[in-house]
């Protein structure tokens, strides 16, 4: 009868158990083990029958036997251990049988330079170390066939985890102090061990700790070339003891040894490892070690039976805190050295207070944030736990006797929780993605209910939470809900101190919500107010600068470009100094400031600012790759505008590649794709361009809905390409649709709308619909006059377009006046000698000639003809046009 695969597994399991236990099992025993299943029992018997012979026929290869051979002054007499890079032999000194040593020889076949160099590196490391807690280097040299070897003190001991099984807690701690001291000694000699685990930490029968195996240790003072030799990744590292940075393959420092000491102490005290990693998928292992906070040792023991529960009481508090501090995910949060950790253990032994603070629920929350920072569901869960945390803190606050301290405590906890929330929320912000909003909205709603009921008596905390949830509503595009909460927060906070910093904070946040909703006027007054308070009350410089850059965004949206520019000038140096050049807020603000230069008609300035920003964005990319993608995209756009299509396509393609891999960056990816399409169109790669336009369009429609100005942007760019390719029929309906959308969508930024209208106006000119075109251009120009102090390229394009339109449908006087103005603007915003400046004069000359004002026309035309012959962006057709007209005028 055929066995099922479950039956086979079962039979194999029984077979192996019997094999291991090494007892003769009778037929009855086997049948009983097989739960009476005869087929399984038969299978077990057949396996058992074959196994005796089988094991002699197929052998796993043994390590190359060197027993009996001599190495230097030693003779190999046995084997101590075996690792990936060779065997550790037991040897005796020839002529001195009393002296046993451990010898490590580079195995034959590994004579290649890399392995050899590393072997030599280990020898060099060991030579530096002379400490009773570290197995001593005795000798070293080369075998007759040219392999390096190391002779070490032979340690007669057992792994520390095994040794401590019979010890009480204090004895275990004393032993740990020895370990920490040996590691500290190595660090003082600029050596990081990197592979601390019980099997490398032996305890002799006398109770002396000996550290072994510096095979992957690293010399801190050597340059990078040896780094590749000693890198952790080069050897099979069990993940059980690896620090998060080791697991991720990042730079390893002394802090990794501190982490591993934490794992070792954890195991010494509880008998188990912080995480059970064996047999779990690799991705999960990495995530666990990087993100999960292990259970505190005492909690782990409480889960066990008998003995463990008693030990648990001894661990609760100090020892939990000490171990958890060593096991922090962030290296800089751990003990600065093994010595510092040992000092805390010593303090505990002496009954003194330790330095390690309790791993608060806030710390655990922080981990939670990290883990869920990109997940939508995570954001909503997080919110609920944050509120729960706030409620607990609020209750604690009520127990504080002095009211002033109570207020300070509330403010402090609320502030910290809020910071966390904002961090996660901003990171998980795929802007206005409709699908996502449902869960987040529900979570926010639940949060509001809890705030109203549970935080009734703690107004500070309540206001802080209303503030943050209100901002969150703003982020998901629900202005009304956001505004309501923020206004309530504002009311509570104003009652306590109407011109306080809390009020300024809420005004700032409400201003941002209003700005996002396109309410620039309200946003302006709120942010201006916030800024005034922050400045008057001496707020932190970075808070002041943050409000300044928010206000700059508002001013830009209003078209008040110089005002925005001067705000950036004030804020950016402060941000760079307080938050750092590669901080996210700084990078975003610098990018916005650069883009403002572009809007102001200074693409060269914009490009150099962005190129400057790029290295910092690349630094930031470790934490926030999306921001790098956005910076590259902006750079690409500016390069396109400056006519450098190839560089533009390169930047934009890199941007798209980066952004594509980040789900929350879908909106930016769509923008980058659109810009890439436009740049490709500029190069005449219409097919590739078309593909990218289509993808961008689909993304945006599904993200924002079909009537958002961001959809119009894609349509307009696509139409522009068709226009350039000479296909007016395809260009026109797309433009019309785009213009209709931006006019209806009130949140359209000024520059976006103006650009679109100007493009549309020129399309109308191309279609000979001059009257319509002139209306469009007039609209743009009057909006620009309200907003801007200086003319820019958009204004120039509009003014030129208006001149063209008027020369066809207006009075000659009006057209002439329009051209005069266009020429003056051109002299300010168009590079000197650029063809466009001379084409304007050519057109004005034509206008004058038609009106019979030949004497005025001729000098204009001849100057234009000469200059157009050599001006960048010109072509022969313009020159011919000017020359032909000149000739006819002179003849006439």
């Amino acid at each position, binding site marked *: 009868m055929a066995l099922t695969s479950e039956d086979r597994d079962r039979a194999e399991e029984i077979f192996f158990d019997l094999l291991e236990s090494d007892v003769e099992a009778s037929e009855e025993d086997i049948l009983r083990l097989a739960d009476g299943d005869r087929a399984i029992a038969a299978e077990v018997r057949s396996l058992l029958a074959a196994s005796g012979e089988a094991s002699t026929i197929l052998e796993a290869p043994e390590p190359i036997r060197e027993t009996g051979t001599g190495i230097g002054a030693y003779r190999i007499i046995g084997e101590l251990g075996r690792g990936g890079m060779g065997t550790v032999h037991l040897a005796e000194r020839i002529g001195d049988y009393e002296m046993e040593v451990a010898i490590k020889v580079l195995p034959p*076949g590994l004579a290649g330079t890399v392995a050899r160099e590393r072997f030599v590196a280990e020898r060099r490391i060991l030579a530096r170390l002379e400490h009773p807690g570290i197995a001593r280097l005795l000798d070293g040299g080369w075998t007759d066939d040219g392999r390096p070897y190391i002779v070490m003190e032979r340690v007669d001991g057992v792994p520390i985890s095994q040794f401590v099984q019979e010890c009480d807690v204090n004895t275990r701690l004393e032993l740990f102090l020895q370990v920490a001291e040996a590691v500290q000694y190595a660090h003082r000699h600029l050596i990081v061990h990197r592979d601390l685990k019980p099997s490398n930490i032996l305890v002799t029968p006398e109770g002396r700790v000996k550290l072994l195996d510096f095979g992957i240790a690293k010399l801190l003072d050597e340059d990078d070339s040896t780094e590749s030799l000693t890198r952790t990744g080069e050897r099979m590292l069990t993940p059980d003891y690896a620090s998060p940075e080791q697991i991720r393959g990042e730079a390893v420092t002394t802090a990794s040894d501190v982490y591993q000491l934490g794992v070792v102490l954890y195991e010494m005290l509880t008998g188990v490892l912080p995480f059970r990693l064996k047999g779990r998928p690799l991705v999960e292992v990495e995530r666990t070690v990087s993100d999960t906070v292990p259970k505190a040792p005492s909690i782990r023991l409480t889960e066990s039976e008998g003995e463990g529960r008693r030990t648990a009481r001894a661990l609760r508090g100090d020892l939990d805190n000490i171990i958890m501090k060593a096991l922090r995910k962030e290296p800089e949060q751990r003990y600065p050295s093994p010595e510092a950790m040992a000092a805390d253990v010593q303090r505990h032994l002496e009954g003194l207070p330790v330095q390690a603070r309790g791993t608060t629920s806030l710390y655990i929350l922080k981990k939670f944030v990290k883990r869920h920072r990109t997940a939508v569901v995570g954001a909503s869960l997080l919110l609920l736990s944050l509120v729960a945390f706030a409620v607990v803190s609020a209750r604690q606050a009520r127990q504080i006797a002095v009211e002033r301290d109570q207020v300070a405590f509330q403010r402090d906890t609320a502030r910290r929780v809020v910071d966390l929330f904002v961090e996660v929320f901003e990171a998980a912000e795929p802007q206005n993605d409709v699908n996502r909003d449902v869960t987040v909205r529900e979570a926010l709603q639940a949060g509001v209910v809890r705030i109203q009921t549970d935080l009734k008596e703690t107004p500070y905390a309540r206001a802080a939470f209303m503030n943050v949830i209100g901002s969150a509503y703003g982020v998901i595009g629900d202005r009304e809900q956001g505004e309501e909460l923020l206004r309530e927060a504002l009311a509570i906070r104003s009652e306590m101190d109407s011109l306080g910093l809390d009020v300024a904070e809420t005004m700032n946040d409400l201003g941002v919500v209003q700005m996002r909703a396109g309410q620039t006027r309200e946003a302006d007054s709120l942010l201006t107010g916030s800024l005034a308070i922050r400045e008057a009350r001496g707020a932190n410089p970075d808070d002041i600068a943050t409000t300044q850059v928010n206000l700059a965004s508002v001013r830009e949206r209003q078209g008040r470009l110089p005002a925005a520019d001067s705000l950036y000038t004030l804020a950016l140096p402060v941000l760079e100094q307080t938050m750092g050049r590669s901080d996210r807020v700084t990078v975003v603000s610098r990018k916005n400031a650069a883009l403002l230069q572009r809007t102001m008609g200074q693409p060269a300035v914009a490009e150099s600012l962005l190129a400057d920003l790029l290295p910092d964005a690349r630094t930031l990319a470790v934490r926030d790759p999306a921001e790098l993608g956005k910076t590259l995209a902006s750079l690409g756009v500016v390069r396109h505008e400056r006519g450098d299509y190839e560089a533009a396509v390169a930047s934009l393609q890199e941007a798209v590649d980066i952004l594509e891999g980040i789900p929350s960056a879908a909106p930016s990816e769509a923008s980058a794709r659109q810009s890439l399409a436009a740049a490709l169109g500029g190069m005449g790669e219409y097919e590739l361009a078309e593909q990218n336009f289509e993808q961008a369009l689909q993304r945006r429609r599904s993200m924002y809905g079909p009537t958002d100005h961001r959809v119009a942007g894609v349509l307009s760019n696509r139409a522009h390409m068709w226009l350039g390719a000479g296909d007016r029929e395809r260009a026109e309906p797309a433009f019309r649709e785009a213009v209709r959308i931006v006019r209806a969508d009130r949140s359209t930024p000024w520059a976006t709308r103006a650009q679109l209208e100007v493009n549309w106006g020129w399309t109308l000119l191309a279609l000979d619909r001059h009257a319509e075109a002139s209306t469009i251009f007039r609209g743009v120009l009057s909006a620009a006059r309200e907003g801007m102090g200086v003319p820019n390229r958009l204004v120039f394009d509009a003014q030129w377009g208006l001149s063209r339109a008027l020369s066809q449908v207006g009075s000659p006087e009006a057209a002439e006046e329009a051209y005069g103005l266009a020429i003056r603007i051109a002299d300010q915003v168009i590079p000197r000698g650029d063809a466009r400046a001379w084409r304007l004069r050519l057109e004005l000359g034509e206008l004058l000639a038609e009106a019979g004002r030949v004497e005025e026309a001729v000098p204009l035309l001849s100057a234009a003809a000469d200059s157009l012959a050599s001006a960048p962006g010109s072509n022969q057709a313009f020159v011919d046009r000017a020359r032909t007209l000149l000739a006819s005028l002179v003849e006439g």
Partner: protein
Amino acid sequence: MTRSDITQLLVAASDGSDEAIELLLPAVYERLRTEARRQLRRERTDHTLNTTALVHEAYLKLVDQKRIEWKNRNQFFWVAAQAMRRILVDYARGRARQKRGAGFTLVPIQEAAVASAEQPELLVALDEALKMLEVQNERQARVVECRFFAGYSVSETADILDVSERTVKREWAVARTRLFQILKEMIEA
């Protein structure tokens, strides 16, 4: 294939790309085979080939360690064990043809490398048997590749296959017995 390509493939493979593993195997195979041939051809009387050393050396040469993490590393050794099996079996096949021997007898084989030279027919038969075993229990076949063909220790094999050491020991004992049973049937048939 350059060092950088291989490193890239390893990273992709550990992210679960089957395609990357498929591309990786021939590259690793090529490299190991060249070196194995060179060593086997040296006409050493003992025909020894330290397979473990060979794989480790290949790893150091083929992979850019700065860009690799331990999980990628395990992936490499996993692939290398499979490559090692093919190399040794191919070599044995060549030897068997030279010897024009007919059948094989069940004699103890200590090392795959030695067997490929001295009992080539047996090793070829073992490979056939392993293919049959593979159908029934793939993990057992992988354990045999790691332990027998590549010469990894129990703990190394456990790391590479991401299972416990006990599982490795069990699968090794069972696989060995099953292979013996299959080989015996082949002789009797």
